[in-house]
């Protein structure tokens, strides 16, 4: 089996090399069959790595300790679920997961673009295969997951107990999906630059992948935070640790890209920015992977002894140099086709949002790398702590939330100050109301948290107003009942309203972060004994009795520990019973024989099992560190070590059982950490809302599934975007974002621009030009008047007159690949 694994990796490397050569040749020569071969190489890579993944998982499930990866991270006592997850807890296995996910996502994007963007996609194929080859190369030459030993060990080390937590099953694949998806926009951006095709088309193609990368990365980060809060005994979810920061960086630049690409789609602006952001995002994603593996920065996650620093550094250097060269050498074709009309427009808000996001990324980048920066500048490595990060990130986060409320209510191109003010009245009222309620409730300390609550109320008010107005416009036209109209509104413009829902989720999440970090009560008890009680915030916590028991191995929730020692805590508020918490600590077996035949059974790493009573308003959180080192308990283990041989772990367990009974009879005082954190739940709820909004924005509209893209279509795309702008303009007028005069002026400009595009389309009619829908309206005299835009062109072919002002934009707005509808039906 190991041999098969080696063969798979070897073949994968060859496939990568072959694919790169044929793709580049295909792109340069324009010969489609070579590009096709390159794409098929990606599919082949995906198949080979899938076989590799399956082989390794079989080894994990079957406890094949001949594999080093299995022996080092799994054992017979590790439950099945965690044996499966153990694959990615080893260096080699996680590289395989990375490469496999990369190949799968690359296959998907190349399959979906197989009929478009031939040249750009061919270069992108080569770049993606380059990444694939890099990771496969690392496995082949540095960390082969199929390395075996002889003789075969009888038992493995076991999965680290800290990782035996359900979210650890999905956290790494989510995060890695995010990281690998980040390389796809990078590959296409580079492809577009090399091919000098930097119009809107490549952006339309990779938009969904950029969104998916953002979504997966975000969810991966959040799952990690939730694991930290509920599994690690420190009661926090974010520590500004280097590796955490490393995952946040590409997420921030990715967020910026998702916003700025809309400006390029609509206005042809910010092209330099729009190629730089995906390049930066991809490089930051690779850098995140690098940091974990090189141990270059002190982090709670990164490890010395990892040897992959140099190859990663070379890759990052190559990517950086390549990106800079490409952007600089192509700067002429990256010029904007428009300029900012007004600082009071949605473009300007997006631009500002981009600057804040990139600024935020810079702050975090600087703080994360500060130890290395200061070492380089002063010769003395030094680090900045969480207070430094907070000082900059909190104000920037406030601005972001505020902007997320302003953006949606401002029209594209230009808005009048009066109109903007009128649209902001309701959000501002929501913020002021929140402020009043908070002050009335006596919450006046922590101004930054209060500012965040008000900003969030502002953002939520703005989205609520958008939904309400949109619904009203739709109702006015269709006469549907309000809920039906609302659903129809959202369903038909998933991209826009998905985005708004994401804004809602982020606002909710930030409220949770602000509340839980500013209004938390923590009590740390060094020696808490049964019968005693203590206060945490408004709650009283009584230590009722200790618990101690051997962990039943047939318990489906068990994680493979030997002994579980904990406490029963009764929580009351003003004398009323609230809940009972059962924090405990799990003791695991270790492989160290020096601990003795009994001692080693519980000598492994103890892992907290946190007691949490979660609710919408607050989480009560308790962790215990029991004392097993009291003279009496120690004595029991020493006697056991002397009398029981290593060959009888069953008898050893009897001793442990006796120890548990002794602990219950005379419980020594234990250490506790107790917390009451308000609104923690809002963080996870906000995350779920973001996830839902992201999925909505990703999902294709019902009609789009039927459409097939058969040829590159940048002009049709431009026409479609222009039509979308026109429809949005109608909606902006209907929802009161635009004054009548501004509407008239912009409408005339847009229609003229649309006619321009149609005139350009006409001289080179598409293959099936006989299709009447594509021909210009013969009734329109402007059509023959080439180059001379017709200011009052009333009928633009293919732009359906809107029966309800909102509806029809959606089907097409949905996704630009939909362009060909009119050409094909």
């Amino acid at each position: 089996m190991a041999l098969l694994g080696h063969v798979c990796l070897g073949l994968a490397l060859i496939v990568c090399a072959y694919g790169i050569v044929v793709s580049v040749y295909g792109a340069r020569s324009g010969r489609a069959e070579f590009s096709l071969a390159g794409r098929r190489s990606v599919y082949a890579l995906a198949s080979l790595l899938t076989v590799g993944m399956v082989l390794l998982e079989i080894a994990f499930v079957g406890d094949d300790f001949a594999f080093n990866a299995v022996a080092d991270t799994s054992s017979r006592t590790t439950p099945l679920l965690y044996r499966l997850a153990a694959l990615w807890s080893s260096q080699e296995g996680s590289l395989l997961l990375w490469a496999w996910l990369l190949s799968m996502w690359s296959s998907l994007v190349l399959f979906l673009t197989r009929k478009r963007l031939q040249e750009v996609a061919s270069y992108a194929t080569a770049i993606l295969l380059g990444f694939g080859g890099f990771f496969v190369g690392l496995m082949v030459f540095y960390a082969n997951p199929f390395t075996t030993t002889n003789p075969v060990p009888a038992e493995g080390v076991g999965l680290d107990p800290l990782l035996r937590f359900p979210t650890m099953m999905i956290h790494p694949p989510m995060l890695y999906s995010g990281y690998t998806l980040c390389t796809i926009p990078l590959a296409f951006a580079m492809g577009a630059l090399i091919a000098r095709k930097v119009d809107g088309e490549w952006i339309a193609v990779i938009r969904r992948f950029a969104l998916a990368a953002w979504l997966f990365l975000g969810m991966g980060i959040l799952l990690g935070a939730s694991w930290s809060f509920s599994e690690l005994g420190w009661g926090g979810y974010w520590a500004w640790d280097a590796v955490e920061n490393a995952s946040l960086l590409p997420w921030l630049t990715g967020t910026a890209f998702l916003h700025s690409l809309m400006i390029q789609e609509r206005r042809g602006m910010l092209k330099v920015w729009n190629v730089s952001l995906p390049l930066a995002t991809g490089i930051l994603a690779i850098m995140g992977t690098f940091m974990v593996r090189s141990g270059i920065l002190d982090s709670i996650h990164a490890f010395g002894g990892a040897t992959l620093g140099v190859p990663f550094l070379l890759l990052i250097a190559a990517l950086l140099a390549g990106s800079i060269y490409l952007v600089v050498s192509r700067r002429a074709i990256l010029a904007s086709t428009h300029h900012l009309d007004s600082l009071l427009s949605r473009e300007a808000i997006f631009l500002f949002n981009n600057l804040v996001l990139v600024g935020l990324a810079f702050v975090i980048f600087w703080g994360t790398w500060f130890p290395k920066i200061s070492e380089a500048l002063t010769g003395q490595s030094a680090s900045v702590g969480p207070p430094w990060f907070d000082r900059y990130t909190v104000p920037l986060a406030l601005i972001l939330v505020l902007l997320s409320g302003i953006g949606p209510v401002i029209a594209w191109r230009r808005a009048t100050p009066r109109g903007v003010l009128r649209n902001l009245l309701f959000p501002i009222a929501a913020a002021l109301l929140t402020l009043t309620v908070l002050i009335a409730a006596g919450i006046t300390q922590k101004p930054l948290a209060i500012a965040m609550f008000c900003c969030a109320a502002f953002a939520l008010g703005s989205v609520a107003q958008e939904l309400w107005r949109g619904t009203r416009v739709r109702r006015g036209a269709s006469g549907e009942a309000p809920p039906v109209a609302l659903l129809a509104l959202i369903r038909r413009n998933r991209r826009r309203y998905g985005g708004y829902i994401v804004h809602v989720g982020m606002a909710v999440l930030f409220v949770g972060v602000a509340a839980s970090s500013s209004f938390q009560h923590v009590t740390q008890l060094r020696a808490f004994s049964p019968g005693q009680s203590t206060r945490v915030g408004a709650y009283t916590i009584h230590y009722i009795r200790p618990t101690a028991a051997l962990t039943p191995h047939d318990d489906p929730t068990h994680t493979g520990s030997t002994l579980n020692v904990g406490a029963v805590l009764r929580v009351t508020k003003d004398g009323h019973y609230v809940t009972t918490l059962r924090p405990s600590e799990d003791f695991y077996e270790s492989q160290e024989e020096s601990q003795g035949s009994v001692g080693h059974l519980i000598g492994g790493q103890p892992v907290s099992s946190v007691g949490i009573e979660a609710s919408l308003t607050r989480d009560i959180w308790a962790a215990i560190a029991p004392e097993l080192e009291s003279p009496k308990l120690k004595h029991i283990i020493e006697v056991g070590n002397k009398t029981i041989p290593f060959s009888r772990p069953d008898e050893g367990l009897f001793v442990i059982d006796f120890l548990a009974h002794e602990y219950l009879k005379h419980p020594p005082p234990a250490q506790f950490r107790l917390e009451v954190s308000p609104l923690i739940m809002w963080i996870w709820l906000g995350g779920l809302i973001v996830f839902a909004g992201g999925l909505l924005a990703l999902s294709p509209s019902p009609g789009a599934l039927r459409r097939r893209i058969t040829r590159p279509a940048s002009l049709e795309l431009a026409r479609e975007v222009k039509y979308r702008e026109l429809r949005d303009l109608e909606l902006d007028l209907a929802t009161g974002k635009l004054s009548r005069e501004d509407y008239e002026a912009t409408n005339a400009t847009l229609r003229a621009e649309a006619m321009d595009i149609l005139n350009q389309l006409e001289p080179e009619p598409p293959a099936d030009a006989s299709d009447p829908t594509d021909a210009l309206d013969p009734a329109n005299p402007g059509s023959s008047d080439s180059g001379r835009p017709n200011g009052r062109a009333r009928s633009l072919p293919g732009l359906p007159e809107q029966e309800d002002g909102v509806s029809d934009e959606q089907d097409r707005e949905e996704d630009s690949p939909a362009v060909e509808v009119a050409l094909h039906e």
Partner: protein
Amino acid sequence: MNPARKRTVRLVVALSAALLLATALIYTSFNASSPALTPSQLLREAQPGRSYQLTGTVVKGSVHHDGGVLHFSVADRANGTDAVPVAYAGIVPDPFKEGREIIVTVQKQGAVYAGEQNSLITKCPSKYTVAPPSEKQNA
């Protein structure tokens, strides 16, 4: 003002704002940081009243509790001769153990180094600790 000129002005304003912010950022990062030292460096250089970030390995047999205070010594990763005695009160993370690599912020107080409350972090063993061959044999 013509539009091109206006754009230039905007650009200059934006760039200077960014420059100003970046300067503040860089200045405060040098000010607010605490030097990261290894135990042997700390023993040589530490001045009382300054915070240092200490990274090293917990010396075997050095851990003991004294009331609510945890005492342990931290030595360099490679050679464990220079050990820094640390007195720490605060949350002790789960993976804390003799022989594990830790990071803690300390201040010199006489002969001992007082750990800042809740600053102790243990390097997460979740990833890729390359076990020496001898340990593997035991497995």
